[in-house]
């Protein structure tokens, strides 16, 4: 006698007919499908950083893709790998997504060699975002070090688009030397059009440099911060936000109004690969944006 196990083949049941929506948790099944994008523009910011404009090719997918400032996406370069990158453009921009990418390894290296018209893929957006609504009616302090300006561009756009909802907005930006400053061509617009106080500083000046030199914390000496009415967003290398956050803490800025964006190794963006774990928290799902109170409570965070 032979019994047969009915072949309940899962492959025969289509998982979904519509394209995936990564930000709609309930409908996601095809978690590894990427949206195909074309690189429609490449702007060389410094020898190490380039700004890429990506246009999602499928109109339906382009329509679905929406994100909030502070979120990141997984950028796929077929055959080379996938890397997490913060979105550097306005969440209102439906035409293209801007990514500011530093040449750092295998994937970013080949991306820097890519030409306009190249096709890459994205998955996402993933992760938490900055609480833009909560900040309404407050002063905002944006503090960036080096490449940390990239994730701040999205909130900057948001603020500019809703400028009247916020009080004083300052951007403190420090880099190691003048040539590594990013987006210099936009500073005038930020200051004049969007009324953002921009303070820049470099660790080490060069011949043409007339601005400030020193560590980013020097900039605090030039300003008064109202701890009762200010939100702060800090992005940059770990060592920088340690100093900056310590300072803000010392002037009694509440920890739950300080936000940082953490960086860890990532391979999925979906809380599965565990590469981005800090203690028992996923940087990709529970972060990358954390308030400082949470960070203080994370083991091995900084």
């Amino acid at each position: 006698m032979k019994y047969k196990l009915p072949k309940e083949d899962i492959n025969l049941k289509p998982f979904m007919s519509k394209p995936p929506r990564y930000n709609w948790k309930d409908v996601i099944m095809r978690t590894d499908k990427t949206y195909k994008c074309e690189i429609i523009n490449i702007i060389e910011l410094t020898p190490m950083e380039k700004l890429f404009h990506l246009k999602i090719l499928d109109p339906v997918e382009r329509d679905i893709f929406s994100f909030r400032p502070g979120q990141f996406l997984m950028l796929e370069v077929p055959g080379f790998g996938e890397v997490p990158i913060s979105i550097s453009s306005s969440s209102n921009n439906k035409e293209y997504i801007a990514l500011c990418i530093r040449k750092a390894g295998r994937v970013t290296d080949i991306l820097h060699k890519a030409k306009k018209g190249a096709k890459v893929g994205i998955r996402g957006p993933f992760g938490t975002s900055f609480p833009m609504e909560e900040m309404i009616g407050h002063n905002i302090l944006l503090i960036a070090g080096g490449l940390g300006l990239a994730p701040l561009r999205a909130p900057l756009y948001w603020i500019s688009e809703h400028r009247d909802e916020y009080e004083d907005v300052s951007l403190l930006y420090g880099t190691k030397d003048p040539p590594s400053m990013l987006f210099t061509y936009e500073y005038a617009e930020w200051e004049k059009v969007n009324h953002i106080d921009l303070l820049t500083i470099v660790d080490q000046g060069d011949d043409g440099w007339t601005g400030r030199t020193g560590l980013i914390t020097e900039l605090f000496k030039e300003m008064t911060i109202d701890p009762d009415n200010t939100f702060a967003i800090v992005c940059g290398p770990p060592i920088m936000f340690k100093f900056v956050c310590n300072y803000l803490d010392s002037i009694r800025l509440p920890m739950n109004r300080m936000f940082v964006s953490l960086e860890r190794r990532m391979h999925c963006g979906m809380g599965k690969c565990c590469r981005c774990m800090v203690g028992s928290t996923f940087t990709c799902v529970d972060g990358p944006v954390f308030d400082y109170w949470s960070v203080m409570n994370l083991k091995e965070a900084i």
Partner: protein
Amino acid sequence: MKYLGIDPQKIKIGVFNFTCCEGCALALANKEETLVDFLDLLDVVTFREISSDRGEDYDIALVEGSISRDDEIERIKKIRAQAKVLVALGTCACYGGVNNLKNQFKIEEVVEIAYGKDKVETSKVRPLSDVVKVDLEIPGCPVSKAEVEKIVVDIVNQSEINFPEYPVCVECRRNMNTCVFDLGMICLGPITQAGCDAVCPNGGVGCLGCRGPAEDANYESFREILEENGFTMQEALERINFYNALPGMVIDES
């Protein structure tokens, strides 16, 4: 890659051999299912074992074998001068390999053992990097063709080359082998760099460390393990010295 607007470049290679068994060069001709595609990525300028073409305009020199005679030094220096990238292929080229076992004897003694009274010229065995600058080391006795393929594809696509940093055990356990320590034998897998897909433990024998040390290998702990498993230091040393590829793993003989 074309879709990125980058044209893959055929690479002009020369394959050369020094003191060795030529197994690494031969390994390049294996893996028949992809051989034709593989050769298509290359512009083979010199490869004496399979071709009578002898060009001089190679960019990448794949060199197998170690240096064990003075005329070899001249030859490798010439190759170095021509090649833009010099790749040490295999454990002999990277570490001296089994040839290194010769160095435990005096030169005259070695000649005497193999050739009796006849005179034969030879010197101490050295890895390539002792004589010339080496740009890339691909270890293995022999090299793994799959790994070489991956590296060649990366070079053709102008992409960065990555090697696994972890030890052979990772691959071995992925293959669900029975750990050879459980079978009562020594395995150097825990301190050896992966990348061979753990062929030796797959075949039921211990790793001999042909691929050199894994990143941050824990020699101290490994030594204790050998002791706890009842192996004498001599037994352990015989294996560690076999390929001379684990220079950090020094064991006190006392």
